[in-house]
């Protein structure tokens, strides 16, 4: 058996990479993909801990997370498309009209 810890560490690393990506990357679509990555990392954590404790709670929660992720992507991409149409760029640094 692979020790549960390994899965948790992996999930943490994936989460970290995702968070870093959200903060650093400029392309809106890439940021979205990183957000998805973070959510997947969370899923992995949930499943690993579910197997560790022998319950099904974690597994069920994963389904909910995936549903929400899908819905969120649908709306988010809609916003991105509208934004790109308006500003002709996917570079989030250029979306700064609400500044001082």
């Amino acid at each position, binding site marked *: 058996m692979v020790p549960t810890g390994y899965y948790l560490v992996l999930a943490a690393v994936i989460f970290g990479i995702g968070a870093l990506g959200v903060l650093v990357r400029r392309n809106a679509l890439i940021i979205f993909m990183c957000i998805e990555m973070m959510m997947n990392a969370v899923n992995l954590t949930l499943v690993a801990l579910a197997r560790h404790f022998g319950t099904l709670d974690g597994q069920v929660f994963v389904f909910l997370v995936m549903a929400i992720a899908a819905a969120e992507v649908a709306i988010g991409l809609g916003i991105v498309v509208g934004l790109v149409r308006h500003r002709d760029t996917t570079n989030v640094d250029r*979306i700064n009209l*609400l*500044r*001082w």
Partner: protein
Amino acid sequence: MIVEYAWLLLAFPVLGLTLNLIFGARWGKKTTGIVASGAVLGSFLVALGLFLHLNGLPEEERTIEQVLWSWITIDQFHVDIGLLIDPLSVFMALVVTGVGFLIHVYSMGYMWAPHEKGEEEAMGDIPRFVRYFVYLNLFILMMLTLVMANDFVQMFIGWEGVGLASYLLIGFWFFKPSAADAGKKAFLVNRVGDVGFILAMLFIFRLSGRLNFLDLFRPENVQALQVGATTIGLLLLLAATGKSAQIPLYVWLPDAMEGPTPVSALIHAATMVTAGVYMIARTSPLYALTPTAMTWVATIGALTAFFAATIALAQTDLKRILAYSTISQLGYMFLGVGTGAYVAGIFHLYTHAFFKALLFLGAGSVMHALHGELDIRKMGGLKEKLPTTYKTFLVGAAALAGFPLLSGFFSKDEILLAAWQRSPILWLIGIVTAFMTATYSFRAVFVPFWGKPRNHKLYEHAHESPPVMTVPLIILAIGAAFGGVIGLPKASWLHHWLMPVFEHVMHESEPGALMWGLMTVSALVALGGIYFAYELFVVNPDRVLRIRRALGPVDTLVQHRYYVDELYMTLVVNPLKALADWLAYVFDQRGIDGLVNGVAWVTGWIGQQVRRVQTGRVGTYAFTLFVGVVILVVYFVLVGG
């Protein structure tokens, strides 16, 4: 029963001034004058009624307090608005309303036509005329409040009120800078004295818990003031020097001549300036406790009398001569009350009211004839042109000089007698001043009225004044001549009348031979002064120049009124102005405004800095969120929920 109507004494002037204020412009000048004069006449009749009532009562009962209503009650501090009806206050009320009435009538004639350049344009004819009479009635109201007051607080209300009326009337022709300045000066100098009054009141209350006259001056209560009696006496003296124009606060009175002449007659000769003397007389039980303060009163009086008389000798403006004369004569009154001769002081107050008002109104008559000219060097030979004015003026001057058997002679002599009994030095100052008084009085008679006219154009146009002005002159002249009859030595009705007020503080003295001796000296001095004036101003005017040259620097000093005004300017006015300028421009504009504006500026600056958080960039916001989460996680891991 008249006592129930005593409040009418104050109500009539209120009615007069209110009616005139509202309807005056509509009524026109004649009705306004009649209403105002009628109001004062009404007060006079009430005062007369009170007098007759008191006269009918036995002596011990001649003190009545008529409380009108209760004003302030805070724990032990209780002040009523009321009238103190006793021989002294009723006598004063008669003088104030009697002379006041005559001056109101005279004013109708004097103020009829616009006087000063710019008056017509500044305000229009009728509204100014009405305003004048409103102010005059206001003055009478305030003076009566002062005189009939039953406690210190009410007296102070009247005290301040007459100061206000004085300011309004001195600066009546406000478009003249000199008049506006004079009004301000009068009010401010008076204010200095008022500090004395207020502090005295505080001390009195602190020591005794009472401010009501009848209450406080009971022998068992007044003792409480013994500890602070001298301080209180001196503080009240300070107040009196302001109101009654003595050293050091007399400087406003000569400037006050900028006001209309009837105002000078009423306020600055007959009534307001006597308030200080009255106040000292009223508080005589307090002064009885402090011989030190009384000595101060007498000394300041004597010195002021002397000092002012020297200045009067050198003045060329007819009204200024009379102004310094008033200061000098008030000094005599102070000398009287300061030596304990309260009746003598009040007697002189009464005779002075007559002859000084007469002299001022006479001067007004001369001004009326000469279109406002006041310089006696431009006058001359007016006795043929203005016979009634001349004759009444002559009577006034003679009374002032102390010509034997006229009113001024008796009152001045009574004061001099008391002065001698206190200290021959005081008497000496007084008698020398009397000589100068006689001289300057008759200078004011001889130079304008005798001899040849010095300015023919003015002389040509001169005409006698209308009866509305000359009749009051005649009435006052009768008073100035025969008024002394109420205070004849050995048979003084006034002495008898005022005794109930002063019996605890005055001692009857039987002067005998001394009195006749001093009286003879006074008579000789008065006649001598008149003769001296005759020699100097009629026989050989060059003598004046010779004397002045001989006096050299003394002459310059007196001509410039001892440079007192200049001294006050450097010592007091200019430093205060500098302080005011500093406070206004540096402390207020730069300091306080800077502080307030600074707060606003700092707030703005903070805003400027904080706004930078709004970058508009999603990335920044995401990063902030991230940092916040990290902090929270660390916190919960380390410290625990």
